[in-house]
């Protein structure tokens, strides 16, 4: 049951082969066994999980079950929950429990999922390795000396190790897709505005989107059906008709026009990553998909643009952490301004402080036009590249990350080395486009490689359909890490 997809789990629950309580117990046992070594969670609440599982079983007994009723889930610790504290991986919010639930949390609760734990993450989602967490780095189940990716690294590691069958994440520059790739699971960043940001602690508001991580593309569809939807409490939530994200699960890929950007297959990509991604491309071509060579000439600038815009928005968003209304407050200070300064110096870690300072700089008098405004203009050029590409192709295919998982500590001394890991993932949030990552093989070290499919606005169902077709013929997504056997 531990390696079953959500569809299979749902069927087993419906057939009374297993109860939600038994399923929750199974997850809690695995968390007991592997959770600490992977440091995938910041909070685990067994009694809450069992109480919700009982509730789900009762709902089913009354004939009110939905597809996700009784499915255990873990939320990234940046999504506000009343049931457990919401730390954002930061000392600043170490003891913070939100007075309300995020929209995503409400939606998944309404769908009957059973909240088991909150996942470790880079502090305030700023990072690509989950090493900037105040609670210590999460570890990759394929090799515990390596990072699981980030910032939703705890979510990815938890799903990869089969501690929970699904988790939520958030993606600002790749924080769902990159850890999904490095940990060997599936992850989707939806079109901006499809999932409400209400209760998602803001990092960069024009980029942030929550999305699902799970074992299969079909699972992503089930989760999106619950997570997506209009919410008037988020001013950027899009009021669109409800859609079924699984509607293309039966569609084949014959005639699908696959855009292959030369910028995504160049230098800097590890040979093992290239081999696996090119093999996946050949598989699609073998199924009758049509390869279209495209160019995204401005995409190499994406990292530079992202590391202006995201810190600028972060410096503004994180000004709310001042030790007055919530979170950490310094013990000793001389006056009000000193209290702010010491509270923030103690509450934030190195990476977060650095990004606030960069953001402050690019927004400051005399530098705004040269940095922030210029970044917004190049952002438009990047979005235009995609608009032009989508006149000729239906999806853009490439590697999710230029490398497989790297060693804990390998990239912490030089921020630029860490940032360059986001080269293929920053473009989709900058343009607001949906993109997913699915496992497509292993490199020579036995580490998972992620295949990224990016689509036009609102094409999530098509991306999921294409990935599902691939997963019907391959079993990369069903491989279980050797360090966390079933």
């Amino acid at each position, binding site marked *: 049951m531990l390696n079953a997809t959500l569809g299979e789990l749902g069927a087993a629950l419906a057939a009374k082969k297993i109860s939600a309580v038994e399923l929750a117990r199974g997850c809690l046992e695995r968390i007991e066994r592997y959770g600490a070594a992977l440091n995938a969670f910041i909070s685990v609440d067994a009694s809450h999980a069992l109480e919700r599982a009982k509730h789900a079983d009762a709902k089913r007994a009354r004939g009110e079950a939905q597809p996700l009723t009784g499915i255990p889930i873990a939320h990234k610790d940046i999504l506000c929950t009343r049931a457990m504290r919401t730390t954002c991986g930061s000392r600043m919010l170490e003891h*913070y429990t939100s007075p309300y639930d995020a929209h995503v949390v409400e939606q998944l609760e309404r769908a009957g999922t059973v909240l088991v734990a909150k996942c470790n993450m880079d502090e305030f989602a700023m990072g690509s390795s989950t090493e900037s967490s105040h609670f210590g780095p999460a570890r990759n189940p394929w090799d515990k000396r390596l990072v699981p990716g980030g910032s939703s690294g705890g979510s990815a590691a938890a799903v990869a190790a089969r501690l929970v069958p699904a988790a939520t994440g958030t993606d600002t520059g790749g924080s769902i897709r990159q850890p999904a790739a490095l940990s060997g699971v599936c992850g989707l960043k939806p079109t901006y*505005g499809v999932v409400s940001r209400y209760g998602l602690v803001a990092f960069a508001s*024009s980029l942030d989107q929550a999305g699902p991580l799970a074992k299969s593309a079909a699972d992503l569809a089930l989760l999106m059906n619950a997570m997506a939807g209009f919410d008037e409490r988020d001013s950027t939530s899009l009021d669109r008709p409800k859609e079924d994200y699984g509607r293309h699960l039966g569609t084949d890929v014959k005639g699908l026009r696959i855009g292959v950007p030369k910028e995504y297959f160049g230098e800097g990509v590890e040979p093992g990553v290239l081999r696996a991604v090119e093999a996946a491309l050949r598989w699609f071509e073998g199924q009758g998909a049509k390869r279209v060579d495209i160019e995204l000439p401005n995409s190499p600038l994406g990292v530079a643009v992202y*590391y*202006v815009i995201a810190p600028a928005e972060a410096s503004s968003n994180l000004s709310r952490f001042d030790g007055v209304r919530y979170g950490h407050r310094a013990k000793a200070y001389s006056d009000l301004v000193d209290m702010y300064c010491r509270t923030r110096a103690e509450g934030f870690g190195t990476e977060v402080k650095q990004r606030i300072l*960069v953001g402050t*700089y690019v927004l400051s008098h005399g530098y705004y036009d040269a940095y922030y405004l210029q970044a917004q*203009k190049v952002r438009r050029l990047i979005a235009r590249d995609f608009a032009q590409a989508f006149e000729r192709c239906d999806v853009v295919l490439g590697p999710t990350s230029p490398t497989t998982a790297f060693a804990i500590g390998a990239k912490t001394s030089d921020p*630029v080395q860490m940032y360059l890991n986001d080269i293929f993932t920053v473009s989709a949030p900058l343009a607001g486009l949906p993109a997913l990552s699915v496992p497509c093989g292993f490199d020579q070290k036995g580490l998972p490689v992620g295949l990224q499919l990016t689509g036009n606005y609102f094409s999530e169902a098509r991306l999921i359909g294409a990935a599902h077709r691939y997963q019907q013929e391959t079993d990369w997504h069903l491989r279980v890490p050797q360090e966390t056997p079933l």
Partner: protein
Amino acid sequence: MSLTPDDVRRLARLARIAIEPEESGAVLDRLNRVLGLIDQMRAVDTTGIEPMSHAVEVVQRLRPDEARETNRRELYQSVAPAVEEGLYLVPKVIE
């Protein structure tokens, strides 16, 4: 362009983050590395390009101007570091 130690002090003051003298060298070094990366995009010709401030072009939604939030002051203040009689406490700013 490289930042100087004075720039870092100014930014830290603007951002309300205390930086101890012994960490300022490392902060300066990391900031300059990041700015080196960011500088790549400054040379791009963007004449006539509209800045893109948001991912999706939508008009700001408005709702009728009517009171409807319930007063949840006690609940929201329950997570504050220091409150008294419904007020947030901060160090004295006026003598």
